[in-house]
């Protein structure tokens, strides 16, 4: 049940517990226990909401920043990654294989806010060698969800 449960809540964390039990074919108490276990094991790390900020009047700017760093002796990339992810404006940090080391995504109120974060905070860190900032112009799909189009049922209404 674990895998199926995770697949469901990953897409819809607001699903009713009773309904969850019905569609999984188990008792509600089992769902509750399993969710609790997943949370305490740190497998479920949060229940967030996906928001298409573009449709609101609230200004948000996001960017992806490629960061090249010097790994530190004994710590590899972990300690520099931690220094970066502690900034609240940083929404994710990934260690990446390939041409650079860390991919940092950032959310700010304006272009200026992001560029000042990069120039003042990020690039001045000792182990940061270089950065390349890519501003996000439009989100088409995020977390497996398409932002642009809505599902439309184009099937015939009754078929054999």
């Amino acid at each position, binding site marked *: 049940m674990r895998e199926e449960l995770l697949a469901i809540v990953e897409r819809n964390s607001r699903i009713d517990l009773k309904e969850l039990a*019905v*569609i*999984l074919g188990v008792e509600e108490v089992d769902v509750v226990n399993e969710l609790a276990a997943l949370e305490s094991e740190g497998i479920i790390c949060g229940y967030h909401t996906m928001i298409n900020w573009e449709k609101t009047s609230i200004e948000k700017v996001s960017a992806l920043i490629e960061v090249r760093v010097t790994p530190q002796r004994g710590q590899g990339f972990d300690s520099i990654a931690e220094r970066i992810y502690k900034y609240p404006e940083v929404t994710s940090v990934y260690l990446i294989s390939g041409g650079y080391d860390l991919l940092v995504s950032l959310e700010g109120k304006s272009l200026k806010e992001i560029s000042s974060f990069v120039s003042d905070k990020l690039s001045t860190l000792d182990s940061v060698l270089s950065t390349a900032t890519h501003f996000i112009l439009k989100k088409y799909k995020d977390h497996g969800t398409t932002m642009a189009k809505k599902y439309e049922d184009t099937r015939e209404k*009754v078929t054999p």
Partner: protein
Amino acid sequence: MRNLLSEKTVSLKPSGIRKFFDIVSEMDDAISLGVGEPDFDTPWHIRDEGIYSLEKGRTFYTSNAGLKELKEEISLYTKRKQGVTYDPANEVLVTVGGSEAIDIGLRAVVNPGDEVLIPQPSFVSYEPCAIMAGAVPVIIELKAENEFRLTAQELEEAITDKTKILVLPFPNNPTGAIMERSDLEAIAEVIRKHDILVMSDEIYAELTYKEKHISIIEIEGMRERTILINGFSKAYAMTGWRLGYACGPKEIIEQMLKLHQFAIMCAPTTSQYAAVEALRNGDEDVAEMRTAYNQRRRYLMHAFREMGLECFEPFGAFYVFPCIKEFGMTSEEFANRFLAEEKVAVVPGTAFGDCGEGYLRISYAYSLDNLKLAIGKLAHFVEKLRKERQE
């Protein structure tokens, strides 16, 4: 004026679904649970292969029996799933949907007056295809108390010395019934004893929710007397691509190929390229869709229990077949009133044979949100009918 039409064709009853469709399509705001095809889009990588084949200019006929790669993949598929091998060179035929395979399969084996056994409720085309092939359809009425499975006794009682072939429609549309290994073994004994053929329509083979689907070709002595029909519509959500196939003994496939060749030439080329991709890399998509269907199936069974509506638990396809006999009206009356009063379309069981009387086919090829909305209306309607009956 001279009678210009074929008497036999004129004598065919139009599909019961058609009539209902005309009513539903007049209503703009009706919610439908009447669809016999997946709600998922064809997985993108499969569509992409179709597009790619067009870009490369693969726009010609394929050989009559189908693309070699596709026939080979089909052969590997039956080996992987059923442990039964067909020679791609002469035991596999790619058709325009499973529907074509049903038609030419029957025409390839029956002689005038031969009897074709058709268990019902079942898909709408077996009976007319049997008639057009010159055969006499003999209906076996499946029963709710057997979970709409075909029993050895029912089969035995229907067989005469004119019986040529049994149509075996499982997992079943409209009931959702499946046949498990022991069920198949029981009927196989009767089939062998009377030396008849089988046309096993396994278009819903990938959609079972108990154990993995068992095909009759896995049962001893059955492969050599069975026309296996399958296709891409239900498993890979590819209904509009119109692609199916038949596997069977080469003597039969050879005859089917002639009919196919003269009537169809070959199945659509683009679809065949897409289908190769489906068989090579589609297992995960199928598993994902199966999981989603199963969740909806559980939801519906639970909802029926809550509203006290009688329904055996189906383990196949994407249909449930609840019983509405308690309301004292025919399936058609129920469906018409439900549509008029709650604006929800379900298909009367009688569209799939007279013995579907007293039942409805409800499709769960819809999102859970959609189902919830419609089932809420069903609960309301059922409540209303029960009150009416008390008064």
